[in-house]
């Protein structure tokens, strides 16, 4: 047995003796399969095209231990401080769900917002049909890792026709207990036909744990039913020494709509692998993102939009701001398969380099096998417009403030797309603070 196999097998064995409630046999089988897949392929290395600019192997090979259960059973006050008060909230501390969802008293019939562990204990019928059933997710090594070893995560289920007016909020927090350890999360979000769901997946460190070096590996599956609409907001404000690895994979059915927005503001090393499969005609996807990295941060956003069927549309806009000695990576792949005629796919990636020691690697990628399509991508790397700077300076704004204002304007295009005012203001104030701006009002 290789070192990797030994290590993973040991962790898996520890998992079954951890005293968690029993899970259905089919889930054990799927986890076993994911483990075998990961052992067979090994950790991703920078020799692989998808990991060319982000080398996670040394980190993963260190064999970090699993984070222990937190000493709490109910969410502490700081956990929900940054959240949306109106949301239905699940709190995860170091990978463990604390208590049932709050604000979930009057949910429509059939709606479930609970921990994955609880849903497994009930053997919710949708789980067996959908959990770990997406090939595109199974192919991702980090998602396989999460499938094999995560103890908990979120489960959200919307029955047909239900429009959930309030967003679901997943607050994933790490404490000092996670130092030098791995936190795994495995989530499944299902919106049955004609339903509507918005989920905010927010990752952050506890107030006293901003300097803790931990590794969070999350995998989130989305199933968007016919004519359903799902919005997924991935907000990452991890601690300055934390590693944040996230895999999000959606399958979209006919005429469904997916909105994915990623906002990376923290973490030492962040790697997001976000994909959607437009598996039936008429589906639409919007993938947007903002990453703002400074210091020695390394942020990698990998997206894949797989146009499998005709008459689908996708649009993507990722923006990066790189300061200090930070490295930003964008890899956006748009795949249009032979039968996906009348595809309309647009993609853009714009990067702002603020310092002489920052780096941007951008790889927008189109792979097109159908002819009746409109596909385009644009990518730019540059600095603030000299004329815009001059305009502001001519009006008596000093250079530093002028630069900050223009940088904020660049970032705000993405932040403005967040539909929840409280959240938008939080994100705006985080970015503005980092830019040394104050007193700007955000709507």
């Amino acid at each position, binding site marked *: 047995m290789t070192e990797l196999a030994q290590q993973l097998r040991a962790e898996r064995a520890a998992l079954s003796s951890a005293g968690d409630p029993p899970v259905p046999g089919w889930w054990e089988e799927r986890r076993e399969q994911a483990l075998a897949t990961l052992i067979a392929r090994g950790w991703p290395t920078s020799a692989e*095209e998808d990991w060319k600019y982000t080398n996670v192997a040394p980190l993963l090979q260190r064999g970090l231990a699993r984070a222990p259960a937190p000493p709490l059973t109910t969410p502490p006050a700081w956990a929900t401080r940054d959240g949306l008060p109106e949301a239905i909230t699940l709190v995860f501390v170091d990978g463990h769900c604390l208590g049932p969802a709050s604000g979930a008293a009057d949910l429509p019939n059939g709606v479930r917002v609970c921990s994955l562990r609880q849903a497994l204990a009930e053997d919710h019928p949708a789980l067996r049909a959908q959990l770990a059933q997406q090939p595109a997710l199974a192919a991702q090594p980090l998602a396989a890792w999460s499938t094999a070893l995560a103890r908990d995560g979120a489960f959200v289920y919307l029955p047909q026709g239900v429009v959930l007016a309030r967003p679901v909020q997943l607050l994933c927090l790490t404490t000092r207990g996670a130092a030098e350890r791995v936190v795994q999360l495995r989530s499944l979000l299902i919106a049955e036909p004609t339903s509507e769901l918005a989920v905010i997946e927010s990752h952050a460190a506890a107030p006293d744990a901003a300097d803790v070096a931990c590794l969070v590996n999350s995998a989130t599956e989305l199933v968007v039913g016919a004519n359903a609409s799902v919005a997924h907001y991935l907000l990452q404000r991890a601690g300055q020494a934390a590693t944040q690895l996230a895999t999000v994979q959606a399958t979209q059915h006919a005429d469904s709509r997916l909105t994915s927005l990623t906002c990376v503001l923290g973490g030492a090393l962040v790697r997001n692998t976000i994909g959607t499969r437009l598996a039936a005609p008429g589906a639409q996807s919007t993938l947007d993102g903002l990453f703002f990295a400074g210091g020695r941060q390394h942020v990698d956003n990998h997206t894949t939009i797989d146009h499998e069927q005709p008459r689908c549309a996708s649009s993507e806009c990722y923006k990066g701001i790189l300061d200090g000695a930070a490295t930003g990576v964008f890899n956006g792949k748009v795949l249009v398969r*032979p039968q996906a*005629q009348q595809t309309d796919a647009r993609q853009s990636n714009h*990067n702002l*380099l*603020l*310092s*002489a*020691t*920052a*780096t*941007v*690697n*951008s*790889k*927008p*990628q*189109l*792979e*097109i*096998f*159908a*002819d*009746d*399509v*409109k*596909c*385009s*991508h*644009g*990518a*730019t*790397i*540059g*600095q603030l417009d000299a004329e815009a700077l001059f305009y502001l300076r001519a009006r008596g704004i000093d250079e530093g403030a002028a630069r900050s204002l223009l940088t904020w304007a660049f970032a705000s295009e993405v932040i403005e797309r967040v539909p929840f005012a409280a959240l938008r203001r939080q994100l705006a104030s985080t970015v503005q603070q980092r830019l040394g701006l104050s007193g700007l009002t955000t709507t």
Partner: protein
Amino acid sequence: MSTKLIEETAQQEYRWGFVTEIESDAVPAGLNEQTIALISSKKQEPPWLLEWRLRAYRHWLTLRAPQWPNVRYPAIDFQSIVYYSAPRQQPRYSSWDEVDPKLLETYEKLGVPLEERAMLAGVAVDAVFDSVSVTTTFKDELAKQGILFSSFSEAVREHPELVQRYLGSVVPHTDNFYAALNSAVFSDGSFVYIPPGVRCPMELSTYFRINAARTGQFERTLIVADRGSHVSYLEGCTAPQRDEHQLHAAVVELVALDDAEIKYSTVQNWYPGDEQGRGGVYNFVTKRGACRGVRSKISWTQVETGSAITWKYPSVLLLGDHSVGEFYSVALTKGRQQADTGTKMLHVGRHTRSTIISKGISAGEGQNSYRGLVRVQRGAAHARNFSQCDSLLLGDRCGAHTFPYLECKNPTAQIEHEATTSKIGDDQLFYLRQRGIDQENAISMLVNGFCKDVLRELPMEFAVEAQKLLGISLEGSVG
């Protein structure tokens, strides 16, 4: 491009498919140190060059054929290839009359009446037939200005100091699998040296042709433009029809010193294989230019219509401050052709600029990939890049792919990349049709317009040929 031309070219099989029967002086198939020593001794090379070849060979043994290009083909058996083939008669011609008439006939068929073309068009052609340079025209006139334009072997004999200084300095033998192979077994090629301050009075041109069956063609071209000089070089290729795949692994090295400019144009029309994808040339080429001097400029223009598989990335190393790199490409794949082509622009010097215009056309079951790298190093202040990669799809079984890599480490650099993929728009066609232009003419106008940005970069003689080559089987592709 007129309808007649489209019909002509669409219906023609591979027009250049013929084999000239000249006895070849070939070494046995297979590759080992003895083969390399044999090639070297046949070419009466100095010991340092043999040593250089062997170093490359030993390095090649440690490499594996690259798997990353977006092309599919059966593995190549490198031991079944003949690595050297020269026409048996190898006299030194003093005039055209002495040249083997069959060779001349070949050129006639290719549409290259050498002396006529040379005189009328002012083009000096260093015709490479299989591996050995047969004759060089206009040499004296070029020599008057101090320009050296000869076969590579001749340059090795007569200007070893120049060859030794620049050979492998842009594409080292360690560069990649096929560059290492080429370095070990290269047969011949062209050598150009333009002395300081000289503007080459004519377009330099060479015709490559793969002839003897199972002969890999391993050209090596080296062009050095000394300070303040200027040269435009044309390379055109056609190959006879074959059933088995032929490997072509050339290396082209360009060196531009201070204020020098090199323009390198290629029209490539090797045998693409038949409708089932049988036969056809494997074109695995390493082309790179180094802008070593300040304000130097290297411009690549290519029209790639042939070959079963094309794997080619003409690149520019922008070392000198204010140096300029350009890449203009039209790549057309039809039938079962596959092309993975693009460029690399490496910005090292300050105020360096690069432009990339790539037009890919896919028809039939052709697969066309653009793969490009723009890298701005930490010190390349105020570097500027603009890239545009457009793909046109004709038919629903072809593919167009774009793999751009943008890597930037300098905050004063500006990089822009844009790519589009589309078919010929119904509205565009309708617009032309309702003005009385028939479908075929309308399509050809649109295709021509699509490639215009690249075609106008070609020298006049080549632009005509390129337009002809673009006359593809458009019939039935659209509408």
